[in-house]
């Protein structure tokens, strides 16, 4: 239309210009008429379009009054709003009126708005009496002055219900994730107070929206019929905005949104999680170090061995150093007996122990061999009675069986009286029965010793191979019981000091505790005479008994180390020491008589078996057991 008008104007102007130019010309009249007609025509067309032009030309389009909306909040009342439009004359209040019509059974006709709200402009309020649900309404907007209906709007009330927003929106924290990054909340609300939910007049459904604050997009949750809903997966470092709105179920008209609620949870746990980890690490390292130090200190020696191997110490061949520490005495004795140096050392300590040097002659060896064989031969049972046959030595063949008998008797004695003392760790009984009566089998034993003695103590071995016997121990092999020996020797030493003055002999024959009478030995030795291999210079003497002590002879415990049992010794004072026959150091106790005296040869009670010589020398001497004399006998023996 505008283009047309502009072209028409141009044509008009052009024609008018032509007309003026034509005026100068002679044919003015026809041209002017033409121009006028054209002008009138364009004018006419222009004026025709003028009725439409004001709409295009006016920048503001005319807006008629119309209804903006009709809403019900609680399905009991409703309101309608309208707009006056752009017409100036209709903006005045009262220029427009609203009429409504109900489509119900009672056709009343159009009625005017029952209540124009005073406070709000252009609002018509229909109260409860005018509100009928399930009936269709039609409202019209009419001009008051003219009969013009500007707008009409028909509806049913239940379709225009927009519930009020829910009230009381709040949130509670459900939980925070372990990592502390996410959390869940529970949102609660109450239905709008205007909606009658309790009677069930309105059944509402709620929709929760949430978003990160100042974000553009809202997240929606599902419609909820109840009054609470959970929101999951929120992040702790962000602030959230939550709002809610509701609508009638089975209808689509949502109400307005409620006020927004802001949700934020502080990300606290991150700190806490780091701290224990660092502490744990520190503790772990400290613990490891402690453990390492503990291991090093506990295994220090092993480590030292590994790192710094020790120089191997010199070893004694055949001797286990551990055995020396912990081994039993018998094992130790057997062990050390194989070593030569042990005996040597022990005997060096005893000053009063002197050794009898035996020079072994061929004759002795012959005798010795025979004697050895005889001694070893244990076939001859019983004891032969000793007679005063004036034997020169104990090595008479007649006597030899007695030795064997003594051996047997000794074994019998063994059974009755345990010869084992408390201090003696070794069990003498098996040893006495089993072991040969020579402490050292390989070594030749002097004839003088062997005759009556089943036990002899080897004190030393000469380089030539001869055995040096020493008295002092009754039935033990010299290689064993070094402890005992030292003990006995100590006791002996204590007692011998008194007698040392009296000692004429270099040899201490008898241990007073043991009660071996060396008299017999001495006599035997003496009486042996030439056949004795013993050195002639060796003199024997018997220790005098200790009168102060026990007058009684033997007690059962002749092995008692404590020295309670004192043996009665008698010293044959009259006969010189040289006269005394060699006395054996060890004698076998065969029997104990009523008076608790040990009998070496019970059958020979009346007549001492071994040394017939002393009887010769002391004819008044009553029957004495071989080598032992009781105090009673002592008196008798004194010449």
């Amino acid at each position, binding site marked *: 239309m505008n283009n047309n008008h502009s072209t028409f104007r141009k044509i008009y102007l052009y024609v008018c210009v032509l007309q003026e130019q034509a005026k100068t010309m002679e044919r003015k009249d026809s041209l002017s008429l033409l121009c006028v007609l054209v002008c009138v025509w364009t004018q006419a067309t222009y004026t025709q379009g003028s009725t439409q032009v004001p709409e295009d030309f006016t920048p503001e389009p005319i807006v008629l009054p119309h209804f903006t909306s009709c809403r019900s909040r609680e*399905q009991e009342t409703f309101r309608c709003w309208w707009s006056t439009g752009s017409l100036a004359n209709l903006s005045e209040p009262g220029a427009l009126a609203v009429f409504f*019509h109900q489509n119900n059974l009672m056709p009343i006709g159009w009625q005017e708005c029952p209540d124009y709200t005073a406070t709000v402009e252009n609002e018509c309020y229909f109260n409860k009496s005018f509100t009928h649900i*399930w009936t*269709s309404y039609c409202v019209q907007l009419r001009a008051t002055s003219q009969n013009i209906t500007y707008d*009409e709007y*028909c509806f049913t009330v239940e379709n225009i219900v927009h519930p009020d927003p829910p009230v009381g929106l709040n949130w509670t924290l459900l939980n925070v994730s372990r990592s502390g990054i996410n959390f869940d909340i529970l949102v609660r609300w109450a239905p709008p107070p205007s909606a009658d939910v309790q*009677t*069930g007049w309105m059944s509402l459904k709620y929709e929760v929206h949430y978003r990160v604050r100042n974000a553009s997009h809202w997240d929606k949750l599902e419609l909820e019929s109840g009054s609470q809903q959970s929101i999951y997966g929120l992040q702790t470092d962000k602030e959230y905005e939550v709002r809610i709105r509701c609508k009638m179920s089975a209808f*689509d008209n949502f109400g307005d949104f409620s006020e927004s609620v802001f949700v934020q949870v502080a990300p606290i746990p991150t700190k806490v999680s780091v701290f224990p980890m660092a502490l744990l690490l520190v503790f772990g390292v400290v613990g490891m170090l402690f453990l390492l130090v503990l291991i090093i200190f506990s295994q220090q020696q092993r480590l030292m061995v590994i790192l710094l191997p020790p120089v191997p110490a010199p070893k004694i061949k055949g001797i286990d150093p551990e055995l020396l520490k912990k081994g039993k005495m018998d094992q130790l004795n057997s062990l050390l007996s194989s070593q030569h140096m042990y005996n040597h050392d022990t005997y060096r300590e005893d000053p009063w122990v002197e050794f009898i040097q035996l020079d072994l002659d061929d004759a002795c060896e012959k005798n010795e061999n025979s004697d050895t064989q005889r001694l070893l031969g244990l076939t001859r049972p019983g004891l032969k009675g000793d007679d005063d046959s004036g034997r020169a030595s104990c090595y008479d063949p007649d006597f030899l069986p007695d030795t064997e008998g003594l051996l047997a008797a000794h074994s019998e004695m063994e059974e009755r009286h345990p010869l084992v003392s408390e201090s003696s760790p070794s069990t003498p009984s098996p040893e006495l029965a089993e072991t040969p009566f020579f402490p050292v089998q390989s070594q030749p034993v002097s004839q003088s010793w062997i005759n009556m003695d089943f036990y002899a103590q080897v004190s030393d071995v000469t380089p030539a191979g001869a055995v040096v016997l020493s008295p002092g121990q009754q039935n033990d092999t010299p290689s064993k019981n070094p402890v005992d020996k030292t003990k006995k020797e100590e006791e002996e030493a204590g007692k011998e000091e008194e007698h040392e003055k009296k000692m004429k002999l270099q040899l201490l024959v008898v241990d007073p505790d043991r009660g071996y009478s060396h008299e017999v030995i001495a006599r035997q030795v003496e009486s042996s005479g030439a056949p004795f291999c013993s050195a002639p210079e060796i003199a024997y003497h018997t220790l005098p008994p200790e009168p102060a002590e026990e007058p009684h002879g033997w007690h059962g415990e002749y092995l008692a180390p404590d020295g309670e049992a004192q043996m009665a010794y008698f010293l044959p004072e009259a006969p010189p020491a040289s006269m005394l026959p060699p006395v054996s150091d060890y004698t076998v106790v065969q029997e104990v008589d009523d008076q608790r005296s040990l009998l070496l040869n019970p059958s020979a009670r009346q007549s001492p078996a071994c040394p017939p010589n002393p009887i010769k020398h002391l004819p008044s001497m009553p029957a004495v057991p071989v080598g032992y004399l009781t105090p009673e006998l002592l008196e008798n023996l004194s010449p």
Partner: protein
Amino acid sequence: MLEMSKTVSWLTLLCVSVTVRGAPAPICPHGHPGCQAISLADLFDRVIQHSSRMHGLSSDLHSEFEQYFIPNKIQIGTRRCHTSNIVTPNGKENATKLAEEELTEVILKLLMAWGEPLAQFHESMTQHADYNIYSSNKALEMSDMVYELRNGVQKVAEKMQLLGIISNLLNGQDFLEGLDAVDSSEIFSVDYPNLLHCFRRDSDKIQSYLKILKCRILPENGC
């Protein structure tokens, strides 16, 4: 024994499927032995639930059909339903003012009125090829629900009568038959959008009336 157990299991399955669809659980006939009686409150709850479901279906169908048939303003204003002649309370106050018996009657009348038209509606839907299957299923379900709801409300009325809450109802068998006779109108035959609109409105009425009735008979907090 096997057959008995089979029938029993089949029956239970049927019941379960029915309940899943939203139908009310079968209510024990009066005096039936071995059947556990349901309280009035439970009956009301079930019935109200059912009516809500029915109303929801009607709304869905109506909105689906409204896409095809947009009514102008004039039509909305002058729309008439075949149940318009049934006097129904138009507001909350009106409904609360009404006596329980009358309210129950109104409900039953409405339910009666809609049984037949909905069945026809479903039939016509199946005949037309352009209607989708989901809408057809909804229509069928809706039609079944009307019958079930009718039975349910009748049971509620009987229970109420039994408890002495309401006096003798007018809706005996005669009443119902009279309603059926009245409802043979031709209005609903073709105008499906109008039918759906009407039914949507009436189902809302039924739901609201039932709620009000329950609140009045069994007063709870806020009723």
